[in-house]
């Protein structure tokens, strides 16, 4: 027996034990635990999504409004940054030193080995100036991406904008297939038609190394799919009319909506004040967005869809139609201008039929029209009678597309309010209200709200003598396509189509009759007959708002229009001439030079001096 030979086996045992420990640990890592295999695929197998070319947007005359342009992001891989000369770098990139420091810190916090954006949205000329020098700054590289480019300065509210997808959107199942940092339509048509504009993504599985450098296809491209470009949108918007409308309201707050009544196509969609769509794209768009958001005139607010207001006198037309349908009045019905019931706007001839009542916009007349429609002795209890009458009235009014979203191809539409009996039960208590409580509805005031689009749509319905097609912006998906199916069907109201014609002579009188309230909208000098109705929207906080709604030509309507100008007083003063100019522009293709004084009046006139 050699010296201490037993210890040989201790050493041997230690060696063997460690070997066994390693073999079993490896067995666990390599054979039992699958997670490392998926992690390995995640590492090297890059699912490269090929974002297709986003669809373009054209106006109704096929002129290009929105296209795509490449922009560039400067990316940084912190681990590869070596001996960075910050001062020189900042001078080249024209960025403050603090921004660079912050950017690098953020990038490091994300990852040392993967690229993060340092400067986004560099334009092509900006790129050219830095690209040659970039070689001196290891760890920085440029990555190209597509962004929206605008050929128009108008229509920002309808077009909406495109931006990087927000974390909140990413959570919704609708956007499940989007990756962080990808572009998405944030608002307006860009958002509503996102799936169509987006097209279909292509997916390529590529092998990449640790720096994301491409090392070839995976299994010969067996799992790859091709991308499919997005489809173009052809809008019903008339760009010239749109630009003209935005010019008219440039210094005001308000809106103009014009429809082609026969098709429901939106011809113009002005929300004032407006902003240029390119403000929300490219470098600095975030700051510009915040500026717009803070502007007290709220240029980002999409007024025709989101501002609801009591429609005022224009609503008298709807009440007259409902009353005729119920058989409680006829076109020949006369009511006295009884100032005890409700205050009338001015002194006028006796309203012996509906034509005079509309022309004079007589408040007491329409008070009595609606009272006849609501109070019909359906119950001996006058409270219950009012409940039953108002319930039937509400159901019929709603068939005009009021009190509900019309369903325009835009996401943020408001529904407005047409009050039900239950609404007043809640407000006043069951059987604690009667017609005297709700009478303001007869002249479009009180607990009622509609949107600009709804108002234009009411006019389109009257122009069509009884039906409407849901207003929409997109008349064709693709060059020779169709609008979405829901924009091809007629919606009839609860009022018989034969009754609508009785309103039209009165509405023509409003514009072209002696002393008509909307005479400033007249196009009689061109032989075009306009049917319209003025309105004044009471404003508790200041000067009343001015509205005017019309269609023309009266016998074969090609345009229905509604105009709303804030704090402009009586509807005939400001809104009527604006509507006249717009209809002239659309129907005649131009505005006659001698009408310049009306343009100046709409654009610069001081409406606070009442003149009617």
């Amino acid at each position, binding site marked *: 027996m050699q010296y201490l030979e037993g*210890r040989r086996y201790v050493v041997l045992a230690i060696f063997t034990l460690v070997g066994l420990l390693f073999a079993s640990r490896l067995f666990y890592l390599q054979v039992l635990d699958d997670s490392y295999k998926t992690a390995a695929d995640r590492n090297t197998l890059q699912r490269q999504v090929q974002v297709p070319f986003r669809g373009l947007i054209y106006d109704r005359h096929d002129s290009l409004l929105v296209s795509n342009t490449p922009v560039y992001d400067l990316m940084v891989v912190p681990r590869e940054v070596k001996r960075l000369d910050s001062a020189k770098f900042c001078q080249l990139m024209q960025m403050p030193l603090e921004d660079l420091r912050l950017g690098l810190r953020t990038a490091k916090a994300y990852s040392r080995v993967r690229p993060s954006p340092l400067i986004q949205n560099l334009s092509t000329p900006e790129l050219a100036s830095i690209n040659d020098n970039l070689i001196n700054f290891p760890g920085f590289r440029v990555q190209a991406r597509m962004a929206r480019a605008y050929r128009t300065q108008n229509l920002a509210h309808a077009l909406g904008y495109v931006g990087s997808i927000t974390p909140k959107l990413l959570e919704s199942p609708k956007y499940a297939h989007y990756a962080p940092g990808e572009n998405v339509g944030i608002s307006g048509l860009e958002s509503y038609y996102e799936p169509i504009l987006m097209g279909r993504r292509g997916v390529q599985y590529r092998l990449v*190394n640790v720096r994301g450098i491409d090392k070839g296809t995976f299994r010969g491209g067996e799992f790859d799919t091709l991308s499919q470009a997005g489809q173009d949108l052809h809008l019903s918007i008339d760009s010239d009319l749109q630009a003209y409308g935005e010019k008219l309201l440039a210094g005001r707050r308000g809106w103009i909506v014009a429809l082609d009544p026969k098709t429901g196509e939106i011809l113009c969609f002005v929300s004032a004040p407006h902003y240029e769509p390119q403000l929300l794209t490219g470098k600095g768009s975030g700051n510009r967005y915040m500026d717009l958001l803070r502007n007290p005139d709220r240029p980002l607010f999409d007024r025709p869809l989101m501002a609801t207001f009591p429609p005022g006198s224009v609503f008298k037309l709807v009440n007259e139609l409902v009353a005729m349908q119920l058989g409680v009045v006829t076109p020949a019905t006369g009511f006295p201008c009884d100032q005890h019931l409700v205050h009338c706007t001015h002194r006028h001839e006796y309203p012996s039929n509906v034509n005079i009542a509309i022309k004079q916009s007589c408040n007491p007349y329409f008070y009595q029209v609606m009272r006849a429609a609501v109070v019909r002795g359906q119950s001996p209890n006058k409270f219950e009678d009012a409940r039953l009458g108002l319930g039937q009235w509400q159901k019929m009014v709603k068939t005009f597309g009021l009190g509900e979203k019309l369903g325009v191809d835009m996401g943020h539409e408001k529904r407005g309010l047409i009050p039900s009996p239950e609404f007043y039960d809640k407000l006043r208590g069951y059987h604690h209200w009667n017609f005297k409580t709700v009478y303001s509805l007869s002249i479009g005031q009180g607990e009622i709200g509609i949107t600009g689009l709804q108002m234009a749509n009411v006019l389109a319905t009257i122009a069509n003598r009884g039906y409407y097609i849901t207003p929409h912006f997109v008349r064709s998906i693709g060059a020779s396509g169709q609008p979405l199916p829901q924009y091809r069907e007629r919606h009839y109201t609860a009022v018989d189509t034969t009754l609508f014609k009785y309103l039209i002579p009165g509405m023509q009188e409003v514009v072209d009759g002696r002393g008509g309230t909307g005479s400033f909208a007249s196009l009689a000098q061109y032989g075009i007959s306009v049917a319209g109705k003025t309105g004044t929207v009471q404003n508790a906080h200041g000067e009343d708002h001015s509205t005017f709604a019309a269609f023309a030509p009266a016998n074969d309507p090609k345009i229905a229009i509604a105009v709303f100008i804030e704090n402009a007083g009586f509807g005939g003063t400001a809104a009527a001439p604006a509507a006249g100019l717009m209809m002239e522009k659309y129907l005649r293709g131009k505005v006659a030079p001698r009408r310049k004084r009306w343009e100046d009046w709409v654009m610069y006139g001081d409406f606070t001096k009442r003149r009617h």
Partner: protein
Amino acid sequence: MSPVTTRSSRSIDWPLLLLYLVLVGLGWVAVYAASYSPDAPPHPLTALSFSELMAFNWFKQLLWMGTAAVLIVILLVVDYKAYDTLAYVLYGGMIGLLLVTLVIARPIAGSRSWLEFGPVRLQPAEFAKFTTALAASRFMAGINLRNQNWRDQAVLAGLTLLPVALILASNETGQALVFAALLLAYFREGMSPIILLLLAAGGVILLLALLVPKVWLVSGFTVVLLGAFALNSRLWRHHLPLSLSAWVLVIGMVFGVDFFFNKVLQPHQRQRIEMLIDPGKDPLGKGWNVTQSKIALGSGGWFGKGFLNGTQTKFDFVPEQSTDFIFCTVGEEWGWAGCAVLIMLYLTLLWRILLVAERQKSVFGRTYGYCVASILFVHFTVNLGMTMGLMPVVGIPLPFFSYGGSSLWSFTILVFALVALDAHRKQDLLR
């Protein structure tokens, strides 16, 4: 040929030589796979010029292997007695070289341990293992460790710790750690097992103190101690002072770890340990090495992805993949089967070296053999342990596998000095 060489070549330990050749050969294949780039021409040897080939690690490794072959011949031809007689001279020379390196070396990756001769870089610390092993074996031959001669023990400790201190000063913690291997050889020659046990216990307590809340650890240990007393009253009477001092020692260590961890360790060392405990904390930053190394290994499966088909290593996800993390390539491309074979090969090599050591007739030869086995074992353990995420990331090579001339040369010298000694063991007896 002289009769001496004829005799010695006949008595060379062929199994050991064969194992060496197999491991170096497989190592080269792994280095080739790790430095393989799909973009390179299919026949680089004919397609590329010498200077272009020098850009490839596998080509340089081929040159290192050629020089290692020359080295082997020299080691076998040299008079075997020189290893014994020159042991202190070599040791002294190496201490001098380490000192010089510390003064003149340019820092490379934070360590002043490389000497540069034009394109060639050598790390003296790699060779210090060899000279220290020789000197320790020589010293061991003259003493008896069991005799509790404090003076001898102190000299041995100083002999071992002097190069360790110099290597630590050059910031090569990993290389210094390897010297702990010599303890196994000293143990074989009579060092008290208590020292080994204490070291092992200390390591376990250190790890526990980092992983488990202190209160649990202290109360757990107290409960165990009290339980032992309750079960066996004899313990209570005979070993109370010993038990109490052990208890105090453990408590001291538990609280000492905090101090050691936060005050003594440098930030990068602390990070390595933190990453060992929780690599998921910062997988794209400090935990990158451990995370990626485990992913590469773990994606290998039973039989691996096949030669040159490893995606993780080929696409540079694993850092240092042809040097310290070479085992990842093995794991990814050859799978668990390949790893098991490799571990088996290493164990066989270690067993064989022990066998060779035990048959030496001199204490010098036996101790040296144990030193060789232990040094290889510690390299193997630390390198594989770090690749699998069982140990902190300490940069030391896997013997014969990792790319690099210094390490290949130093392991070759270690092994073949033993082969040379073994070939002449019978003459040793005659002497």
